[in-house]
């Protein structure tokens, strides 16, 4: 009788596994009819998890591009379709998703997910298949892979980690009242650490004395002690790499403790997001921080205002950034580049497309874009932006020029720096 029980249990378990396997196989068996007409672009995107806010905004922008390009006749005369899956900001999902996109869904082109963590796992797969890989906002991913068909739309520049903060230092050292000391602070997470490691190199290059150089845990509740320590170090410059939660805490603490410095800011993510800008308001005045696009007259590229109007309409009620200044224009632009390249080359030959992209300067909603050998922007266009004359609790001011003045690079400069910060 005992053996009977065991046998039955085993059979049931095996039966279950078999059923599951069959179920799985049936779902993934490719259909025999080939969808010949539409051109499929596949990608994974963070629609849940830590980066979902950005991921969802990017997706909206990409869908706008798709509608635009389809209205203009599509790519290679075919209507564009997206095939995408949520990677939940989880790197281990990415390889599986891209494999399914390529082997099962048989997509014609791929683009990346958002963020270094989600771009990197796909690299070995796209490299093996020799695919052009347009990437959305990852810092220095190609440094390790050295893939000649990788293109990064984030305008970091040819040496991403250092170019990221170069503007901040150029501005500081150009002042009459030259700063001598600097405090470096990084949140314990990938982008922030990398940005600050670049800043460290830049600081040493221009001969600044680093008087404070620490990191803080991701998601710390209270950053008052950190700001106090920086304050007591008496640093002239404060360069920070942080994520939204940390950025808000640091700006608030800096104001509460009356931190004085010649320049404050640098690589703080989150200060570009509408909800946070509105809440912080005047607390942001005179902070110099990175950004990618602001509504200044020097950045009114062809098509960007029309795009933003479409984005803002589409974003209503979707619980993403309502203004869409930070990431969406670049998500639209990187699709523009891919589309223009495919149409120009006239086929899906990945090698030809890659060579074309390397050799061309593209006109996009974020201006002229050209890529260097490593797939990064040939010249850095990471803006250093200073918040000015902000009023409390007012979102509208961020849609107008003058609230975020572009100080760097010179080609798009729209105002002079207010120095010192406080």
């Amino acid at each position: 009788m005992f053996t009977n029980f065991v046998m039955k249990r085993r059979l049931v378990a095996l039966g279950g596994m078999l059923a599951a396997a069959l179920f799985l196989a049936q779902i993934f068996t490719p259909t025999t009819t080939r969808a010949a007409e539409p051109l499929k672009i596949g990608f994974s995107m963070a629609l849940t998890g830590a980066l979902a806010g950005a991921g969802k905004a990017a997706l909206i922008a990409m869908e706008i591009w798709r509608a635009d390009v389809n209205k203009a006749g599509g790519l290679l005369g075919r209507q564009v379709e997206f095939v995408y899956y949520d990677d939940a900001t989880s790197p281990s999902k990415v390889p599986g998703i891209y494999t399914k996109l390529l082997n099962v869904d048989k997509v014609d082109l791929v683009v990346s997910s958002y963020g270094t963590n989600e771009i990197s796992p796909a690299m070995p797969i796209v490299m093996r298949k020799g695919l052009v890989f347009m990437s959305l906002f990852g810092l220095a991913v190609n440094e390790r892979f050295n893939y000649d068909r990788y293109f990064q739309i984030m305008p970091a520049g040819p040496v991403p980690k250092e170019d990221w903060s170069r503007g901040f230092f150029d501005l500081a050292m150009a002042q009459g009242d030259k700063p001598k000391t600097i405090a470096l602070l990084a949140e314990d997470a990938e982008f922030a650490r990398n940005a600050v490691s670049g800043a460290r190199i830049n600081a040493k290059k221009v001969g600044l004395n680093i008087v404070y150089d620490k990191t803080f845990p991701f998601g710390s509740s209270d950053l008052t002690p950190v700001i106090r320590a920086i304050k007591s170090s008496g640093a002239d410059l404060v360069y920070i790499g942080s994520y939204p939660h940390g950025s808000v805490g640091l700006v608030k603490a800096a104001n509460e403790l009356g931190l004085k410095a010649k320049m404050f800011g640098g690589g703080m993510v989150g200060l570009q997001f509408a909800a946070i800008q509105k809440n912080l308001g005047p607390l942001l005045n005179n902070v110099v921080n990175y950004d990618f696009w602001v509504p200044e007259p020097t950045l009114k590229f062809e098509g960007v205002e029309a795009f933003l109007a479409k984005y803002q309409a589409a974003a209503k009620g979707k619980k993403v950034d309502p203004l869409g200044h930070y990431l969406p224009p670049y998500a639209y632009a990187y699709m523009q580049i891919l589309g223009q390249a495919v149409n120009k080359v006239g086929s899906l030959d990945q090698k030809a497309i890659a060579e074309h992209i390397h050799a061309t300067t593209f006109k996009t909603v974020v201006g002229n874009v050209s890529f260097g050998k490593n797939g990064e922007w040939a010249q850095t266009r990471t803006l250093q932006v200073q918040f000015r004359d902000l009023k409390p609790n007012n979102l509208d001011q961020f849609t107008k020029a003058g609230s975020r003045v572009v100080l760097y690079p010179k080609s798009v400069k729209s105002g002079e720096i207010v120095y010192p910060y406080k």
Partner: protein
Amino acid sequence: MSGELLINAVVSGLLIGGFYAAVALGLSITFGYLEIVNIAHPTFVIFGSYVTYIINLNFGLDPVISGLVFAPVFFILGMALYRFYYTSFEKAGQESLNGLAFFFGLMFTIEVLLILVYGVDYRLVNAPYIGETWHIGFVDFPLRLTVPFVIGTTMALGVYFFLSKTFLGRAIKAVSQDRLALQLMGADPIKVKQYALGIAIATAAVAGSLLIIIGPVEPSVGRLYIGRVFAIVVLGGMGSVGGTLTAALLIGVIESFVATFYGPSWAPAVSFGLLFVTLALRPQGMFGRA
């Protein structure tokens, strides 16, 4: 080591510690008196933050008032939760592991529902005192942290006195010690436990309102507090609200001290190292019953 910096570090630590106490209080009750491992407690706190946000946004009510106004609703929620937990688990004697898994599941479910309803964008609130700082001599009291400290410690003290001075409070303390005796004293243990979990979840509402005053909130922020909250409750001692308050203040001060003088990166290791040592030497915590 400058004296000014030291005193400010301690004050900073106390302020954030008061807030930690507010978050850990609910868990102290459920864990200490009901022996329920409510790992979803920080998620309830986040839920409270969102409610505060909605009320603040639509009615302009001060966040703290919003939290207090909504606490009774959370109280009822807590009672219902206990009812469900009791019927599904305690009656059958299935607590411990299964109860744990249940609350894990609950944690994910609440988090996802928040994402579905509110999205993943950060939420913040506005209040006139956020951004203001009092200066007493060379000591800074940023109101953004001082108000939560005051509310948090008041709530903790309130619960402490409730538990020691009122009949229901003492019944809650008694129900985990000797259920039969409690019944003989004329109190229904099930009802008492219901009220206890109700109070615990109600404190989560208030703690949530304090959390969103201190910083921006999005659904997964709760996960950052799980470890800390358990550490505080265990360090303070099971079944001791006073212990929880003390432990919360202690951990706040330690974190602040390490962050100011050595580098914030090591603060978690120090806090949890302390927890470890406590567990190794005196598992019942500082003030727990042996």
